């Protein structure tokens, strides 16, 4: 188990849980990041939002908040 924000560029994972306040969880769910969803990290720079690819979509996520998302590492 890893935090999404810890995945490096080009690493893939499967979301296992989404935590945080109701507002955050609601927003992240509505953009399609839910448990079971496969994500790939496109870019993970310091002090910049994280860019992931999930459900055919490139999504930019606040770096700090992404530590609320846990992933199971997956082989490509």
């Amino acid at each position: 188990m890893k935090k999404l924000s810890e995945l490096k560029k080009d690493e893939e994972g499967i979301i296992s849980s989404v935590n945080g306040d109701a507002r955050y969880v609601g927003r992240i769910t509505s953009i399609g990041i839910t448990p079971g969803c496969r994500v790939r990290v496109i870019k993970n720079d310091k002090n910049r939002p994280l860019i992931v690819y999930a459900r055919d979509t490139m999504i930019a996520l606040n770096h700090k908040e992404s530590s609320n998302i846990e992933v199971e590492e997956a082989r490509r």
Partner: protein
Amino acid sequence: MTEKNEIVIALLGQPNSGKSTLFNGLTGLRQHVGNWPGKTVEKKEGSFTHGDKKYIVADLPGTYSLSANSDEEIITRDYIASGKSDVVCILADSSQLERSLYMLSDFAGIEVPCFLLLNMSDVAKDQGKDINAKEMSDKLGIPVVLFSAPDVKKYDAFYEALETAVANKTVLNTSSLEQKYKDIPEYSEIRNIIGDYKDGNRTGMWLAIKTLEGDLPVTAKVKAELGNEKTAELSSVLDRCEKGIVKAGECKFAWIDELTAGSVKKEKKAAGLGKFDRLITHRIWGKPVVVLTILLGLLVSFIPALPFMGIGSAIGSAASPLNEALLGIGCPSFIAALLCDVLLRCFSFVIQMLGFVFGVTLVFGLLEEVGIMARISYVFDNTMAKFGLQGKSVMPFLISFGCTMGGAAGTRVIDNWGQKVLTIALSWAIPCGAAWAVIPMLSTLFFGAWMPVIIAVILIVMILHMWLTAMLFGKALVKPSERCGMIMELPPYHKPKWGSLFRFVLGRTKDTFFRSFKVVAIVATVFWLLSFTSSGVAGDSILFKVGQAIEPVTMFFGMKWQTFVAFIASSLGKEGALGVLSTIFSGTGSITVGSMVSAEKADNLNELLLANITKPEALAFIFAITFNMPCIVALAATYQETHSAKWTAIIGLYYTFTAMVLACIAYHIGLLIW
């Protein structure tokens, strides 16, 4: 249905689903922009005729879901629940089908006739996706249209689905979704507690799933309907249930996957960042590339602006001859001046302004539609978040170095009202082109080689000013509880839809004209009345008399009555500050609205200024006009974009006040030095 028998369509879709493009394509120039009652969210309505029927289109705010996290979401779902619309057109992006169908799944359970528009089917096709709309339509029980909105002529499939949905009142089939919900034990319990209760067109299923999701307004509504006993029962279920929203989300996506499983075939394609994306998101090069892109955009937006500016200034220059002519035929000077000096000149400003609004809205609307604005938001997210703003705010800020009004027009791409107003409020602190035309000249005149130091101090003060203003206004405009980190889609690049974009920009420009003319005319008339004299001697006007009377007070701020009057006049336009000083010191003629905004000045102005103004006063004056309200047209643009007379007035008064405070500080520091 409206009273006039028109059919009302509501457009519902996530951001980037192509909703605005469809709206503009359908309604053309027949649009009206206002506010949702009691809210600061923009309300767009338009109309079109097809066959022998008239349709009203309501463009609902673009949101990712129908929860209750923001004003936009609440407006959207309350509108749908109100039953004001006869049919809802739900948009999804075919190129990101599963994700964008979330809106459909969140809508499921509201019993309003609807149909599904799978937009950008051309992009999906290029991705190697094959969507069977017929099959999806059978499963959902509503018309499903594959759509790409290249031009208005190809809207036939849309009209056909619309007519079917209206005629047959097609309601979404939700049984397979509810089957999934029932796998959540807490859902079944809540559903049982709710029983037969329905709220208008919102079914028990919808109310139950929203309650499970922890939706506060729905939970409150449901509890109010149930007896005490059942309410207690409901509360105990909710206390036990953790992360209802995640469980509900899993069900919704499982349903979507099932829906698309048979109907969509796709080739697996590895997506990554394209060449331009790699450059613009680069850790080092990203910011320079963004700044260059915006500056280039600003340059390009001058091209369509130039003809307007030419026409505008031609109209303005007709004011004086026309005035003479009117006086010649015996028209009272008061009336002639009101007509020519005030109304005609205001008309001239507004025309010139429209050119710039047109250019900026077109160019930056284009950048938004193509998808570049989302990248800009990403690159500047961390920097702008410090002010409580989106990364996109960097664009209006940069434009404001050229023209504050253009900056205000550029805030259109910011989708949150509070952040939009805050961006405009901060952009006022950025000295505009007119200030840059006056400040270096005055600084050199009074301080010679120290000019660069003055400019540097002005830039530092600008940053502090923006920071302070963000602190002061930030809490009221962007509530800390609503500030949240970035969760934003970086959409694939889209080809711009020129027709739709032009229609939008023209509509916007027309709207700007009427609103702005009102503001500009009112403010200019007030100034003109204050400076009007029947004798033609400037010293007799109310403005001068009052200026002279309160000189003891204004001297505390480092301004003699002459510079104070020029400062007040600079609220109309900064170039005018010199024109006014010139009139006063050379003692010729009276002040007109024309001289307040043009830099017509006496030949010996430099000597006059040096002879009449001390160094500390000059420093005070420089700061006063740099940080004063940019100009009346910027004020009008602020009103146009914020739709709020209250905030426009607050920002206007705040800047007049802070400019005086800054002048005061500059003056007293100046007194210590010289």
